[in-house]
């Protein structure tokens, strides 16, 4: 990075990797996706290998993750939530590990790409719509008709409801993407401050130290955001599934 120029966005740039695979469109992003999926499966596989009555550390971690997502599903969606548990579990851990791995230096954050988060959101919205249609058939469309509203207002309210339903695509995907991107831009900017100020002579040392302190705090903050945004994505998926199953 050249002094006097903050290149905060090149960290999001995709580069082909692994020769032939790269020519097939393989970049850092799919690599980190595979690492995230692999780490989760490793925790489940290695952690649960002892099948101990009193779990060790890794087994406790695997059980904690399982029960956390399981309770989220059954409490938010209801009895039927168990059917969606594997999907929500996969989704939550995919995003959680994607976010957390991104905090490591030189690692890539695939959840900072709108294409990825939008694709995940499309999966969620299509799934909830299909589930709603499968359970309630055509009655599902009553979801867009608010109850206890004068019939005169319906021509106005039904499009609004449909619009708000479709806006989930934007809100869910942009929330995750923007949070991850903003955090990483901020880390990069303050990191650049440290280098620029530190190289500017004696006067710059104090502000450089301050910027380093800010970056240290930001790392902790990013860890919080990483977990929180994964949780938000998963819990909203559960709420949408609850709506699809119960129609309000």
């Amino acid at each position, binding site marked *: 990075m050249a002094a006097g*120029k*903050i*290149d*905060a*966005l*090149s960290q*999001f*740039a*995709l*580069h082909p990797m692994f020769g032939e695979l790269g020519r*097939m*469109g*393989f*970049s850092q*992003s*799919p690599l980190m*996706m*595979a690492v995230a*999926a692999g780490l*989760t*499966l490793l925790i*489940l*596989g290695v952690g*649960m290998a002892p*099948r*101990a*009555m009193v*779990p060790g550390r890794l*087994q406790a971690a*695997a*059980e904690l993750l*399982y*029960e956390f997502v399981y309770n989220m599903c059954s409490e938010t969606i209801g009895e039927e939530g168990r059917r969606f*548990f*594997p*999907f929500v*579990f*996969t989704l939550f*851990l*995919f995003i959680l590990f994607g976010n957390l791995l991104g905090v490591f230096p030189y690692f890539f954050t*695939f959840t900072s*790409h*709108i*294409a*990825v988060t939008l*694709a*995940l959101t499309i*999966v969620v919205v299509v799934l909830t719509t299909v589930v709603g249609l499968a359970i309630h058939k055509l009655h599902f469309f009553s979801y867009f008709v608010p109850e206890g509203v004068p019939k005169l207002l319906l021509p106005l309210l039904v499009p609004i409801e449909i619009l708000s339903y479709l806006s989930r695509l934007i*809100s869910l995907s*942009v*929330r995750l*993407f*923007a*949070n991850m*991107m*903003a955090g990483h*831009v901020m880390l990069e*900017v303050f990191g650049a401050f440290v280098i620029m100020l530190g190289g500017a002579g004696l006067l710059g040392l104090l502000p450089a130290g301050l910027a380093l302190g800010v970056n240290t705090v930001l790392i902790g903050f990013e860890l919080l*955001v990483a977990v929180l945004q994964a949780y*938000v994505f998963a819990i909203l998926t559960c709420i949408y599934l609850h709506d699809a199953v119960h129609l309000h």
Partner: protein
Amino acid sequence: MRRFPASLVLLALLAPVPALANGMPQLAFNNPLTLDQVWWGAGIFVVFLLLAWKWGLPRVATVLEDRAAHIAADLDAARAAKATADAAAAEVTAAIAAARSEAQTAISAAVEAAKADEATRSAALNARLEAQLAQAEQQISAARAAALGALRQVAGETAATVVARLTGAPAPPGRIDQEVAAALAARGIVESHA
């Protein structure tokens, strides 16, 4: 959600930075990698979902179920053991009470028996002592009678001798006997005709 506007503000602040002129790599759809990551991601996600669903999660589920069953069985066993222990404790309490009353009965019976035995023995001892006492008294009175009989004879002979010396003539034996008996009776030593 709250951080979204903040990030927009940040992006706006960063807008003059020359590097941003290149635009966000996330929106560089002319780069085939931007969309390719979605296809790769879809494949990875499906494999991840299937492996978690069919292999990973059931592993956790069986362990959790086993543990729940184990804990329930342990609780049942503990409850049964507690019931047994309670019954045993009640049994012990009852046995202690029975043993105590039994011991009490035995003690009082033994005390009674000892008292009765003691009474018999002391009665027998008393009887023996009284018999010995009576026998001794009898012997004493016999000895005394014998001694007194001898005394009368000695006194009679002495008196006859004394009379014969004094008078020079033997005293009539009937008279001597009579006088000795009267003298002894007067002193209260023996009856006149004994």
